[in-house]
């Protein structure tokens, strides 16, 4: 199974993601540089967290237009599952592969701590190992995670079950007090209409074994493993 992590100047979770993917898939992981125009065949592509291009202009804006992304967009449109974590989510929104945009946190503060999220959509290649309604404790680390889309777009997302994870408190209550960044409707992650493209602000690659302080992110890796095995079996 081939997976690829895209590396932008300023990415800083790319190697964590590589380690996590190697553990999940048992295969080596390709690292593709933003300036490359060639992208090897891959069953899965991850856009990692970080501060691509220094977050200049808008987070993810310049990364979305980098040479490698034309290939990533083409693969996304031909059905390759794509996961964007944190800055990767911002990049996916800037490319238009996912709707909406991630704005400056409402508090104006950088938020770096564990939060709780509820899994609302387990039918994606990246969440299928979780039960619907599962509550995860998982880290966020961002300055621009405030998900915004207009009311019509938000209603469409809800109507099509495209909200993947939502900020909640420890008991799973989706409360305003559990929202770390002012995101509309406590949205922490969404998918596209095909459910193969997923973006989320939390970092599952930072919490997938007990040595890291918790395992709640492991489900994302288990999902990848299962999704790939299923795809191969077909």
């Amino acid at each position, binding site marked *: 199974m081939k997976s690829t992590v895209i590396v932008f100047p300023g990415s800083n979770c790319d190697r964590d993601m590589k380690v996590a993917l190697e553990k999940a898939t048992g295969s080596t992981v390709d690292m593709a540089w933003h300036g490359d125009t060639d992208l090897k065949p891959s069953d899965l592509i991850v856009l990692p967290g970080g501060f691509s291009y220094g977050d200049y*202009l*808008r987070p993810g*804006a*310049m990364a979305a*237009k980098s040479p490698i992304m034309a290939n990533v967009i083409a693969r996304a449109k031909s059905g390759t599952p794509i996961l964007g974590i944190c800055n990767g989510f911002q990049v996916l929104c*800037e490319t238009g592969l996912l*709707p*909406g*945009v991630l*704005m*400056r*946190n*409402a*508090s*104006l503060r950088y938020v770096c701590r564990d939060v709780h999220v509820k899994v609302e959509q387990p039918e994606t290649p990246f969440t299928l190992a979780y039960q619907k309604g599962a509550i995860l404790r998982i880290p966020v680390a961002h300055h621009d995670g*405030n998900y*915004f*889309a*207009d009311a019509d777009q938000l209603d469409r997302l809800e109507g099509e079950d495209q909200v993947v994870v939502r900020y909640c408190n420890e008991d799973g209550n989706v409360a305003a007090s559990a929202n770390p960044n*002012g995101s509309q409707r406590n949205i922490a992650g969404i998918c596209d209409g095909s459910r193969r493209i997923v973006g989320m602000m939390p970092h599952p690659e930072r919490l997938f074994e007990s040595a890291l302080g918790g395992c709640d992110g492991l489900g994302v890796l288990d999902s990848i493993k299962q999704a790939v095995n299923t795809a191969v079996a077909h």
Partner: protein
Amino acid sequence: MKARIEITLKAGVLDPQGKAIEGALAGLGFGGVDEVRQGKLIEVTLSETDEKSARQQVEKMCDDLLANTVIENYSYELV
């Protein structure tokens, strides 16, 4: 030819930075400030000399990169 491009948040989009500036102005004793909205000013110097073609280029730059039209409006003048 130079393009002065002004990028502003659309009405209804929350602007936490504008709110913080508003609070700071109030803290300095400036009364009568109803609202502050923050935007960006980008100056692009073009080698193009034809105005129509310059306009086309600038609009494409704004649509492709400089503004995110989900949340932002842009306007520009050539100077």
